[in-house]
């Protein structure tokens, strides 16, 4: 009888632990993130962008905005991507950003990020400052 109660208690504990999220152990963001749909709507209005396919990816182990954009052949590709990254910085805290671009018949690498330039939170903070920023790239 005693053993049965122990097993029952174990099951309850496991179920309760499994049902609850693991939110309170994390650091809370110090700002209110702009919802993804609003960010994507801003990007759709961005001058120089022909089309975009961006999503937020939080499937293990990734945590960041990712996608592809097509840039108008007449537009300044680096400037367009810089603004796009600044807009996405207003989104979720600590999110990485990895957007690949194409323009005409060629691919475009975003070259304004420091370090390895892959769009990790550290590199983004170095270029755009602390989150969320104002959606505009630095004036350099």
């Amino acid at each position, binding site marked *: 009888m005693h053993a049965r*109660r*122990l097993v029952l*208690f*174990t099951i309850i*504990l496991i179920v*309760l*632990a499994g049902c*609850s*999220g*693991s*939110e*309170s*152990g*994390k*650091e*809370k*963001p110090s700002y209110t993130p702009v919802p993804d749909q609003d960010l994507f709507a801003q990007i759709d209005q961005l001058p120089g962008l022909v089309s975009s396919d961006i*999503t937020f*990816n*939080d*499937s*293990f*182990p*990734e*945590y*960041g905005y*990712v*996608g*592809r954009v097509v840039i108008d052949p007449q537009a300044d590709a680096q400037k367009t991507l810089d603004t796009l990254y600044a807009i996405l910085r207003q989104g*979720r*805290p*600590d999110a*990485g950003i*990895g957007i*690949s671009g*194409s323009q*005409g*018949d*060629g*691919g*475009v*690498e975003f070259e304004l990020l420091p*370090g*390895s*330039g*892959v*769009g*990790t*939170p*550290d590199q983004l903070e170095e270029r755009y400052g602390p989150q969320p920023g104002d959606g505009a790239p630095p004036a350099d």
Partner: protein
Amino acid sequence: MGEDLQVNGGAGGVEANYEDMLSYAVVLDEAGDSLRDKSMKLGGLVFDGDIAQATVLCPGEVAGVLGAIEEAATGGGGALWVSTEVEVVSDFLRLSVSTLRTTDEMLAQAEELAWTAAGWGAGALLPVAAMGLVGLAATNPALAMLLYDNKDELLSELQETLYDNPWMLEALSRMAPGMVQSSLFSLATILPGGPLLLAALSGGNWPSGDYQSSVAGLLTIANRFGHLEDIGDFEVDKAGSQPTTVDPDHMVRTIFKQQYELGTQEGQVQIIESGDPPSYIVQIPGTQDWATTRGDNPVDLTSNLQMMTGRSAIIQQLVADAMKEAHIPPDAPVMLTGHSQGGITAMSMAADPDFRRQFNVTSVVTGGSPIGRIDVPDDISVLSLEHTQDAVPMLDGVDNPDRPNWTTVRRELSDSEGTSDGQRGPGAAHSTQNYATTGDQIDRSDDAGLDQWRRDNEHFFSGNGTKTQYQISPKDT
């Protein structure tokens, strides 16, 4: 530049040094043979007819010359003596390499045995400890509530502790095969005949100290209950195509930036074609579906476990189908790349002789993949990236082999690199973006082995290329 990288294997690895030693042994052996041959010819002069005639004319002088010849040929310090010395040194080098290899192998086996034993020991105690903890909590509701109320903080602390102390991850992963079996066998003792039943359910794979049998046992048990079955009919269709840059100055960074993007596309394989004649980079994503039953996407947990047992998985054939769909010529150079499970798939394909008969695989690049037990031929170049705090590449329970064709690069991440969504932990260490950063350091490293890897693989990165995605989806019934 790249000072944080720890490079093992490859052109500068231990095995490469052993092979250099064996090459020197061959050179010395040949020199010894040649010297002995010369000493014999020199010694043969004593019986030369012309010299015999000269002896009649000037016996004193010729005797002196013959003495000198004999001394040079067979005397102490002469050619025969030196040739023997050289051949002894050559044999000593061979013996040293053989002894070192045997010692390395025995140490590795002893280490694996020790970890397995530790796992069995820890696993036997786990159910007892868990029941003890639950018993304590049941008799002390205040403690139970305290634990429950703080469980998120405890989990968070646990993740940070594991991130800050990667040796714990290493120890746990090496003990895991024994620990899982031992825990289940301990629990099975509750039932009469339970351990025998468990052994039968595992298809005879358990109990075992062997890694692949341990995983095979787990898979067999799951299969009996309809889980982790590598089943389903799938097809592969072209999904899209875009121009892309494959910059020779950013080879490894490019691979993992592309892997990051590919990972967001459910069930897609990507092929980058560049150069004239063309070379092909075939990219395979990491695990996308963590369910224990097969759904619409075979890039899933089942494929992981299937390939970790050393068996072939459906996903391998589907990647090959995408390569056929891309019309990759049989003699065109192919690089297979993958993050996490993608790396396991890439290595499993490169290890498959039937696949290699269809395509000319010359290179494999993996990031965060447990591939140390997968053997590929010596003529395939392998570059493996691992982060010190990433548990996933540790799941094979062994270090990657140190071989001239296989370079493993490890990097310890910073605290900020290991933080995702406000939580520092091993999960973030597995991210593709962090592997792209490591790739960038590899691109800039002046390590001789990495420089050799770049020279061997630069034809895959000729500036501009085209990337094409292939969608894997269930066949219409």
